[in-house]
């Protein structure tokens, strides 16, 4: 195991314990019984109307899918960046081709109207 990650684990443990104890102490200090009116969802003082689950536009899921596609392609850049100076002109041209493919994909997405909000 990489030694550098031991402090990361220690730090994570520290902040989890700290945040957890904050929540625990406040739940002890502020424990009071709920009234009936507090139990219903807050919708600006009106009684909740309609079904319990909200309908969500499909656009949000489209955005999430686009993110996965583009983010995976962007991750490919990181190794390329590190060895960029050694690769020289060949690496540059290859990556320009990759960029072009990516931008064509983005263009297609925009033309298809995936990013249109109405």
């Amino acid at each position, binding site marked *: 195991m990489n*030694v*550098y*990650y*031991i*402090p*990361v684990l*220690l*730090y*994570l443990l*520290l*902040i*989890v314990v*700290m*945040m*957890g104890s*904050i*929540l625990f*102490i*406040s*739940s002890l*200090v*502020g*424990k*009071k019984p*709920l009234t009936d009116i*507090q*139990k219903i*969802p*807050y*919708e*600006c003082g009106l009684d*909740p109307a309609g079904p319990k*689950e*909200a309908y*969500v536009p499909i656009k*949000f899921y489209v*955005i999430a899918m*686009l*993110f996965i596609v*583009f*983010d995976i392609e*962007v991750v490919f*850049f*990181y190794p390329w*960046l*590190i*060895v*960029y*100076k050694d690769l020289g*002109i060949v690496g540059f041209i290859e990556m*320009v081709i990759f*960029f072009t493919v*990516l*931008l064509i994909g*983005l263009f297609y997405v*925009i033309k298809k109207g995936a*990013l*249109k*909000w*109405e």
Partner: protein
Amino acid sequence: MAESLVFIIVSLIKSVVLVSLIMVSVMIGVYLERRILGFIQLRYGPNRCGPYGILQSVADGIKLFCKQDITLPVTEKTIYILAPLIAGVTALFPFVAIPFADKIAPDTITLFGKVFDLTKYSLNRGVIADLPGGVLFILAVSSLSVYGVLLAGWSSDNKYSFLGAMRVASQMLSYELFLGISIMGVLMITGSIRMTEIVEAQKHMWFVVYQPLGFILYMIAGFAEACRTPFDLIECENELGSGFNTEYSSMKFALFYLAEYIHIITISAIAVTLFLGGWQGPWLPSGIWFIIKVACLFIFFIWVRGTYPRVRFDQLMSVGWKYLFPIAMANLIATGICVLFL
């Protein structure tokens, strides 16, 4: 054995110091924000607790601690309770790899007649974990912060919270992409993704000079990542009540609030490290320079909040994907040409 014990103890001490510094700076930051917003909007702001109201954040903290801790009878109770914890932890986590000072301890220390070498694994430097893939680690961990918000909105059985959470998820996901691309120019110039090496490469010139467009793109993406005005659509109060944290009270709410401010500090700290020379500066000690630079960027965040109105959600999305993404790509290609031929 003794060596690893020293390693663990020194790292723990550094972690505790860093976390308490962040907590104090969040308190100061909240006070500063209210004060500066008051100044911009020609009113006083908090001025009752202590001289110039500097104890206002302490008073707020005590008040929030004593408030009624409402745990609603929701369907997913565990997630409802754990969401603030996740938000707080993921907001604090990226700081583990950000170098905040140069040397904060001597090279060797003597304990019980034994000499321990602290230069190993950067123990004597102002960074908790000097990770070989620091930038990747920070990007990966900071993108986890969407979970806290999303789970909070989803589990609180409230339509408006849920809509706020969906918005923040798509907003943070989209802008994370540009955030990643906008810092790539810096990585290309340095040829390294270790944070300390990036800071040391800026010894003679800050990278903001070579990468002005990259810096601007990073800051725009940073505003969207931290969900600040003009991109604070998650708590758009005229549309969503208060967004994802409507159903939270007491310290649960305070942790979301804390996470928001820690997020701003993290974005500023990454900007300082990658573009503004990190902890480097003349005359003053390195840690002080880091704090000064982060504070300047933090005040810039507040200034923007006091100046700009909120954008609409469709505007946010179309600007991000249609303009910022190609511009960031063009910036990267231009940097590539410059690095290769100049």
